[in-house]
């Protein structure tokens, strides 16, 4: 029988991971639960409503709070959702004035969905947001790829023409004379303008706030990236200087190298900690980072690579994380040699860094030590990958990095 709290499943999911979560909790087959949900949804929509409610109320695996809890605290998100209300009023008024029953009956669910989606979008975790984005993006773009193409434009024109034709037909069918068409139309436009005058400033402010918030998020990400880079270069060098304080020559050499690197960062815009500069493929990048670590820490690194592919940003992040893991192994494990294995498969790139050194207690690492948390795990997650560390005192350490290949899914 399943145990533990009710949770949405993060791994085995088709949509929100609810059926999977229920199945796991009750110890039954997920497919059976899914069938029941679909049947309930077909029977008057109860299943669909219950599903959405469950999505809002059940926390995802590995998260403490449900989306619902977070929505309650997200004042700006609620304001944004409420901002749909005046627009709904306008549509309802226009629908009523022009006697368009379809518009009135569709307006409610459409606006409720839009507002709900905004709330969910703002308050779900980064992984779910990425998933939602991947799922909804094609819908928003009318089934065409992200690149702007003539097909996207053509699709948009066709949809617009169809809507226009339907709208004109509806208008003409209910109001046979031209004047009769125009008069309620003018009325509707005036009502709409009234609403805009009334709520316009509020909407504008909301949008401005959103933009500010987005910029703040971008800045926070940049800061995290910079922290990881500084950790990789400056902090590592300082740690090495402390360790070799009895060798003035080495200290001098390290300080010089670091100074050069910082200068080129500050004045030439070349990011420090940028791994394996000049390498263009995974295999050559791995080789080069191994050489760098060997030269810097005087511990041999055994490199094995299988397959190869060109480097892109996520893969550079993998190299940076791999370098950090290799440096850790060279510096702290006490092992005479570090094994570095990189494999490029059609769908993923994986890197393993392994040493037979002293290992450590993962739970006992202080949160102030940023190496593993920031430079490895957070960096991999920021780029859509995954990092796992397997270690125990006396058992050596193995760091596993996996990154899906972009455009190969």
């Amino acid at each position, binding site marked *: 029988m399943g145990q533990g709290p009710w949770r949405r499943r993060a791994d085995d999911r088709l949509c929100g991971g609810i059926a999977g979560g229920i199945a796991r909790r009750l110890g039954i087959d997920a497919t059976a639960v899914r069938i029941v949900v679909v049947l309930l949804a077909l029977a008057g929509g109860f299943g669909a409503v219950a599903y959405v409610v469950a999505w809002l109320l059940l926390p995802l695996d590995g998260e403490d709070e449900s989306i619902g809890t977070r929505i309650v605290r997200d004042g700006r998100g609620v304001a944004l959702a409420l901002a749909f209300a005046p627009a709904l009023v306008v549509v309802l008024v226009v629908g009523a004035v022009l006697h368009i029953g379809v518009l009135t009956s569709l307006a409610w669910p459409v606006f409720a969905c839009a507002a709900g989606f905004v709330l969910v979008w703002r308050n779900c975790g980064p992984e779910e947001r990425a998933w939602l984005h991947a799922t909804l993006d094609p819908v928003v773009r009318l089934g065409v790829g992200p690149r702007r193409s003539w097909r996207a434009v053509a699709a948009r024109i066709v949809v617009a023409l169809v809507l226009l034709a339907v709208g004109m037909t509806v208008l003409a069918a209910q109001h046979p004379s031209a004047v009769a068409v125009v008069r309620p139309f003018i009325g509707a436009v005036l009502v709409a303008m009234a609403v805009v005058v009334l709520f316009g400033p509020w909407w504008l402010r909301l949008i401005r706030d959103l933009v500010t918030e987005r910029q703040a998020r971008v800045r926070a990400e940049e800061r995290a990236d910079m922290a990881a880079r500084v950790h990789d270069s400056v902090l590592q060098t300082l740690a090495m200087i402390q360790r070799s304080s009895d060798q003035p020559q080495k200290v001098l050499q390290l300080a010089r190298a670091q100074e050069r690197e910082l200068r080129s960062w500050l004045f030439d815009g070349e990011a420090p900690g940028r791994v394996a500069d000049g390498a263009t493929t995974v295999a050559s990048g791995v080789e080069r980072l191994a050489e760098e670590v060997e030269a810097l820490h005087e511990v*041999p690194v*055994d490199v*094995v*690579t*299988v*397959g190869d592919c060109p480097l892109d940003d996520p893969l550079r992040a993998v190299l940076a994380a791999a370098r950090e893991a290799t440096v850790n192994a060279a510096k702290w494990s006490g092992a005479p040699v570090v*094994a570095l*294995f990189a*494999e490029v*498969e059609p769908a993923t790139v994986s890197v*393993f860094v*392994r040493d*037979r050194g002293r290992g450590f207690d993962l739970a006992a690492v202080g949160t102030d030590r940023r190496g593993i948390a920031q430079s490895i795990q957070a960096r991999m997650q920021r780029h859509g990958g995954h990092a796992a560390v397997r270690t125990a005192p006396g058992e050596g350490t*193995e760091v596993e990095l996996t990154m899906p290949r972009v455009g190969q899914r």
Partner: protein
Amino acid sequence: MSDPVPADHAAARPDAAAGPGAPRVFLVDDHHLFRAGVRAELGDAVQVVGEADDVPAAVELICERLPDVVLLDVHLPQGGGQAVLEAVRPRHPEVRFLALSVSDAPEDVIAVIRAGARGYVTKAISGPELVDAVRRVAAGDAVFSPRLAGFVLDAFAALPDDRAPTAVDPELEQLSARERQVLRLIARGYTYREVARELQISVKTVETHVSAVLRKLQLSTRHQLTYWATERRLV
């Protein structure tokens, strides 16, 4: 593949300085210093019965002294390790070869393995590990260093689907999922024992898998291996 060494073989050559049961080893390498280094590292654990620094001398001496294991440099003047293998193997299939190299052109290493070497280690290997590798080869097992495991995975993975081999025996043309798992762990730096623990199988089973891979490597009808080798050279 695993013809037993004649039992009276060691007795026929009483120049044994090392203890009984110590494998009789022959060194082939064109660097004198390296041979001396290996000799020192192997120490008493094996009995070094001779050495040579080029292909003709190696072939002649190996055929005369019939060692258990030949430590063979991949790169030799006048034809490379492959030439030694091709000259000795048809006459004395009981002599086993372990390839050794610093410069790791994958296609050269694979060529030596395909010519009949029972394993491949890099020259950076430590003394005890080398002794262990020699013992394994003497016992008829295959020795895969992480690097060789990587080469093999690469070679067998390089085949695009549309080039599927039209081989007589498709079994030989690809690795099983389990063999891949084993090779991947070896490439990650696991020893046979660690591989066995990770996969919850016995060390013997790991050895069986590795030997099977070696056999496939040697017997496969070359489609993908030649394809892979040409790809590598073109890059």
